[in-house]
C-alpha cells in the first residue's frame, strides 16, 4: 500500500468513526422521540430526515457546498468561531456525512424503539427508573442489535460515500481525500490494477469485519421478546 493510500485509509477511518459517533449521539434521541410521538410534526421531521436519500450525492453535495461556503451564513459563522474555513475541511466532510447518513441510523433505530414493549418500561418506572434510566437500562440493551445495524449502516455508508465528499471536500490529499475518492481517482485515471487492489482490500477488510460482528452478535434470544 502506498503512503498516499495509507493516508486515505487513515482519513477514511477517522471520518467514518467521527461521523458514526456523532450519528449515534444525534440519531438515538431523535429516533426515540420519533418512535414515541405521533402527529404532524414528527411525521414532517421523519420525512425531512429521509430527504438526503432522494437527492443524488453530487447534487446534495452541491447544495451542501452552497451552505458551507465562506460566504454562506453557516460558513461565515464557523469562520468567525474557529478562524478556519469550513468548506474543504475535515469538519465539512463530517457535517456532510452526518447529514447524508442520518436516515440510515435513525430509521432502523426508530423501528426498533417502537417495538420495545411499553409494559417493560412501565415495570421499570414502577421500580424507580426515570425515563433516561429506562432508556439506558431497558431500551438500549433490548435494541442492542438494532444499534449495531444502525452503526454499521452509518459507518459503511460513510466509507462508501464519495459524491458528497468529493464535492465539499475537494479531494485534498491527507486532508479530505478518503479511500472512496482515491478509488474513484484510480478508476477515472484508468489505473485499474491499483483500483482492483484498493477495492479488493476494502471489500475483504469490510467483509471480515462485518462477518465477525454479525457472527458474534447473532440473534440474541433476549432481543426477541
Amino acid at each position: 500500500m502506498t503512503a498516499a493510500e495509507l493516508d486515505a485509509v487513515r482519513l477514511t477511518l477517522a471520518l467514518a468513526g467521527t461521523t458514526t459517533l456523532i450519528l449515534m449521539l444525534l440519531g438515538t434521541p431523535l429516533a426515540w422521540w420519533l418512535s414515541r410521538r405521533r402527529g404532524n410534526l414528527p411525521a414532517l421531521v421523519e420525512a425531512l430526515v429521509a430527504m438526503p436519500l432522494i437527492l443524488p450525492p453530487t447534487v446534495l453535495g452541491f447544495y451542501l457546498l452552497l451552505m458551507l461556503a465562506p460566504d454562506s451564513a453557516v460558513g461565515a459563522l464557523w469562520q468567525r468561531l474557529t478562524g478556519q474555513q469550513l468548506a474543504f475541511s475535515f469538519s465539512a466532510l463530517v457535517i456532510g456525512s452526518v447529514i447524508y447518513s442520518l436516515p440510515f441510523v435513525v430509521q432502523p433505530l426508530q423501528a426498533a424503539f417502537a417495538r420495545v414493549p411499553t409494559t417493560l418500561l412501565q415495570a421499570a418506572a414502577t421500580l424507580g427508573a426515570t425515563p433516561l434510566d429506562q432508556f439506558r437500562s431497558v431500551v438500549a440493551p433490548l435494541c442492542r442489535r438494532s444499534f449495531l445495524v444502525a452503526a454499521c449502516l452509518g459507518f459503511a455508508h460513510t466509507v462508501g460515500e464519495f459524491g458528497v465528499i468529493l464535492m465539499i471536500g475537494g479531494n485534498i490529499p491527507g486532508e479530505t481525500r478518503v479511500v472512496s475518492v482515491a478509488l474513484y481517482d484510480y478508476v477515472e485515471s484508468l489505473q485499474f490494477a491499483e483500483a482492483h487492489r484498493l477495492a479488493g482490500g476494502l471489500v475483504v477488510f469490510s467483509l471480515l469485519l462485518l462477518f465477525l460482528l454479525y457472527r458474534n452478535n447473532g440473534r440474541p434470544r433476549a432481543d426477541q421478546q
Partner: protein
Amino acid sequence: MSALDLALRCAGADGFALDITERLSLTGVTAVFGASGSGKTTLLECVAGLRAPEPGSRIAFDDETWVDTGHSLPPWRRGIGYVFQDARLFPHLDVRGNLTYGQRRKVSAKGPTLAQVCAWLGLQDLLHRAPDTLSAGQRQRVSMGRALLAAPRLLLLDEPLANLDGDSRRQCLAALRHAIAASRIPALYVSHDAEEVSHLADRLLILAAGRVTEHGSMLDLSSRIDSALAKDEQAAAIVHCQLAAHDSPFGLSELHCEGNSLWVNHLPGEIGSLHRLRIPARDVSLCRELPRDTSILNILPVQLDEIEPGDAPRLLVRLRAGEQFLLARITRKSATALQLKVGDKLFAQIKSTALLTETAEPA
C-alpha cells in the same frame, strides 16, 4: 392515620369507566375483589401512575398529592412496588439482575436483602437463569421478589399467586405476609381467591363494573350475609380468639373464643396472645342437640341471628356466639327440617381440620 385518597375516573373501552371516590386506610392489606373486567387492574394502574385518569381526578398518598388538576407525580417517584398480572420480567437481565433492578434504585435504606427475599420465595437456585427459561410460576415469584426488594412505600399486587401450585402458593403467601408485617408496607392486593384474601387482608374493596360496591374491614364484611363476599363459595366469618393452651402431642392449639374452646392446628404464639380465625361457612353445620362421640372437636353453643331470605337451595345463616358471629351455609331442606328460626339456641359444629387458617395479623 395514613391513607390513600382516591377521586378517580378512568374510562376504558366500550363505555367501561372506573369511577371511585374512596379513602383507603394505609395500614396492612386492602384486598381488591371483583369479577373479570371489573376494573381492578385499571385501579392499580391509576394508583401507580401508569394510566392517566381523566381530568379532575385526585390521588393523594398521605400528605403527598400524586394526581391533581394539571399535576401528576411520575410513577418512578411514587415509591411503589407493582407485581403485574403478567410477570413483566426484563428479558435481557437474568433473575439476579431482575431482582436487584429496583433495589439498586431504591431511595430508602429499608427493605429486605436479596438473600432474605430469595429464601422467602425459593429463588436461590434460579439467580443466574434467564427469564425465558423459567416456568410461569417461577417468573411470578421473581416478579414478587423484585417488587419487595425495591423497598416500596406501597405495594400493588395484581393476582401474584395466580400461576402457583398449592405449596408454592402457601410459601409465597407466607413470604408476603412476613414482608408486609415486617416492613409495615401497606398493600393493595387483587385476588380472585377469597381464602387467599382472608389470610392476608385487613380490609376489602369490592368492585363491580368500575364502581365500589363494598368497602370495609374484612371482619365486618365477612360476618354479613348480604355482602358480595357471602355469595362466594368460600364465604367465611372471622373471629377473635385468645390462645389458651398448646396440645403438643397432637399438634394442636386451644383457643378461647367467647368462653368456648376451639381446637386448631398448632399456632406459633404465646399463651394469652390474640388471634384471628377464619371459619368458612361451608365447614359449619348446625345441630339442636350437643353431638357426642364425633370426630368434630369444635362445637360452639350459638344463637341463630339471621337467616338469608330467598328460595335458593342453600342458605347462609348468621350465628351469634357471645359478641361475635359465625356464618353457616346449609341447605334449605335442613333449615326447614330443623325448623330454624331467629333466636333458636343451637350447636355449631366446626371441623377443626378446617380451622387451619389464621389471618393476617394478630388482632
